[in-house]
């Protein structure tokens, strides 16, 4: 096994293991920390795909901001171990997991069936000289997708306004009822 495929399997293992932790662990704080680990793993996987800038953005936005926000909110709430972390009902739970497993089977089956043929069509992935990748990304973002870019700017503005309006109420996290 070469270094690179080892890296992929290692990262895939880390990512999936921490994702399982997010879903299964009952203490939400640990869940959030495992989510941070997943984000780091996903960012490393982006690196193996040659998307360095996106890997950095993944770390800055997800691991450095969104998950920090999750951890902070959980600390504000001061939630300890939950007694009823999972939904009740043996039958409905079984159905849910079975549905998800069936979806996983379907997806993986579909991928294996279609992509292995598809992969032959793809002649060769280009060498992502990082500078070129960056230039290409920037070029596409500011010419072809410039409208989406502006709309996202306005969306962020609206969200900022909305969030402030939502959090307007006075008092701390445990304000009187």
């Amino acid at each position, binding site marked *: 096994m070469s270094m690179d495929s080892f890296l992929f399997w290692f990262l895939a293992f880390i990512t999936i293991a921490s994702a399982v932790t997010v879903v299964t662990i009952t203490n939400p704080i640990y869940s959030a920390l495992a989510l941070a680990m997943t984000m780091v793993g996903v960012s490393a996987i982006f690196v193996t795909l040659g998307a360095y800038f996106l890997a950095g953005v993944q770390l800055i936005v997800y691991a450095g901001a969104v998950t920090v926000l999750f951890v902070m*909110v959980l600390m504000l709430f001061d939630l300890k171990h939950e007694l009823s*972390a999972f939904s009740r009902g043996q039958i409905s739970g079984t159905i849910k997991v079975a549905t998800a497993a069936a*979806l996983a089977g379907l997806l993986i089956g579909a991928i294996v069936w279609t992509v292995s043929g598809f992969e032959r069509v793809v002649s060769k992935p280009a060498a992502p000289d990082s500078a070129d990748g960056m230039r290409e990304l920037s070029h596409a973002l500011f010419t072809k997708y410039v409208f989406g870019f502006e709309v996202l700017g306005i969306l962020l503005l609206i*969200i900022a306004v909305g*969030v402030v309006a939502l959090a307007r109420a006075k008092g701390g996290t445990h304000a009187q009822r």
Partner: protein
Amino acid sequence: MPNVDTSLAAEALARPETQTQIESLDLIAHSATLGVGLSHYLILSAILFVLGMIGVLMRRNAIVMLMSIELMLNAVNISFVAFSRFQNLIDGQIMVFFVMTIAAAEAAVGLAILVAIFKRFREVNIRFFEHLRG
């Protein structure tokens, strides 16, 4: 993987056992240099997506459900980047950029709503949200 070296592929073809097993030259080039192809990334993405889905379906803490949604979005991002890489199109990466923005915005709004609810009722379990009617 980037500079697919055809000499490697030829080398692999020269070996008798691979010649019979694998017919496509490009596939050999992939497996010879990286051993990990598009399908590996897509399967990883599918597994992550399903894990996130299980989280949304099974967990009752609304914050953990939001986290699971982030997991699902991340899974989609992996497949976007993988396609962008193997198809040699940059559009996938742009889409990931946009998805990240939307995901962060969604987390911000979701958490703002949850904090507002928590301040009022001290509860983030979704069973409780049934009482919020009318």
